[in-house]
């Protein structure tokens, strides 16, 4: 996986805020994955334009008390890639 790249969603999955679940979810054919808050915040910035570095910088700006987030973002993106939710371009 190219960590310098730009993540995009696998078209099999649709990401959205789900009010009834009070969390972000990934919807796919006949299924739904509920995301924890940090996973949701990361994926909310995946739009096919932002690079991984840009996503990290935005999150660090949004959550200034969280400190450096690079390692956490990379780890989660690794999992999301492994799960086939996202692709790296």
């Amino acid at each position, binding site marked *: 996986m190219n960590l310098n790249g730009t993540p995009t969603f696998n078209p099999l999955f649709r990401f959205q805020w*789900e009010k009834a679940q009070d969390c972000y979810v990934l919807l796919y054919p006949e299924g739904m994955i509920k995301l924890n808050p940090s996973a949701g915040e990361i994926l909310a910035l995946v739009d096919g334009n932002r690079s991984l570095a840009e996503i990290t910088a935005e999150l660090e700006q949004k959550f200034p008390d969280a400190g450096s987030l690079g390692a956490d973002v990379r780890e989660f993106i690794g999992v999301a890639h492994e799960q086939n939710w996202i692709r790296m371009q």
Partner: protein
Amino acid sequence: MNRTGSGCSDGLLPAGQEKAAGQPLWLLAELTYKCPLQCPYCSNPLDFAGQGEELGTEDWIRVLQQGRELGAAQLGFSGGEPLTRPDLVELIREARALGYYSNLITSGLGLNERKLEAFREAGLDHIQVSFQASDEEVNNMLAGSQKAFAQKLRMAREVKAQGYPMVLNFVTHRHNIDRIDRIIELCIELGADYVELATCQYYGWALENRAQLMPSRAQLERAERITNEYRAKLAAEGNPMRLIFVTPDYYEERPKACMNGWGQIFLTITPDGTALPCHSARQLPIEFPNVKQRSLGDIWYRSFGFNHFRGDDWMKEPCRSCDEKEKDFGGCRCQAYLLTGDAANADPVCSKSAHHDQILAAREEAEQPSAAPFTYRNERNSRVFCRG
């Protein structure tokens, strides 16, 4: 046989007496019972030809809105063949605006490039195409149609060409299960994202045709082994296609946790607006409410029908004292009713059930191929099952 709950008796439980229920995450909209195919394992009721008039567009839109408010996220457009509804594009557009993930569950008959584009533009998320077999002759014999297979192949290719996620669904049984390798090869060639190799469930039409459909244990074990070999092969090749193998409960010793529990996550609306906790429940001697008379919220939380088998107060022995009742909820209410005559009995699939001998007899029967012809699912045969 008509227990559509459309009379005055579709009462609600008094406030405070509702039993615990989850959110209806899955809304299945059976838009119509019309279908160009005649599959002998169809999940529609045997007496579909005697059911009430189809809901109009406005009714369906109201159902979609109310379902979304209750928390439904997955929406299935099903049937019959949902493509026979002229308002399908409109319903898809509404579903997308409401935030549903919408699934079109189709035979592919009646589909064309232009419709696929229109559905895409309206916001359809996924298409599931059902096949009857991997080769033309068997497929068309089962579908009761001479043109079905070629059309399905063409449409499956077009679905992928237009960038949709695609699930291919094969209902497996003794006539096609020995060719499971060819079924999987066909799915690889067509570029399916998921493949459902779903062994027939014996309700309605499939129960009528069980002797002709049920595979032998040896057939089943072979099919499962070959599926596992393909899983390993696909993984080694980096092919993300997923194979979902649904084992028939007739070869199990414990029942399935049917629908994840009665009235817990699944809500079906039939073509005439009857609301059901699963698509087979219409055969039960229970009155179910209709969306023309009640809001979906009242139906889900307060109707007698949806509360009927929630919790475990209704259970009899051996379920009542069973330490696995939280796991499988006593199995399937429809199967209990169809095989034992009492929907509150244990699902006879369970080896603890006093009626388990019926399952053993069916397994025995499956060792001997039946020469009897299929009872095809069509209007003429359905009339035989309609009474009154």
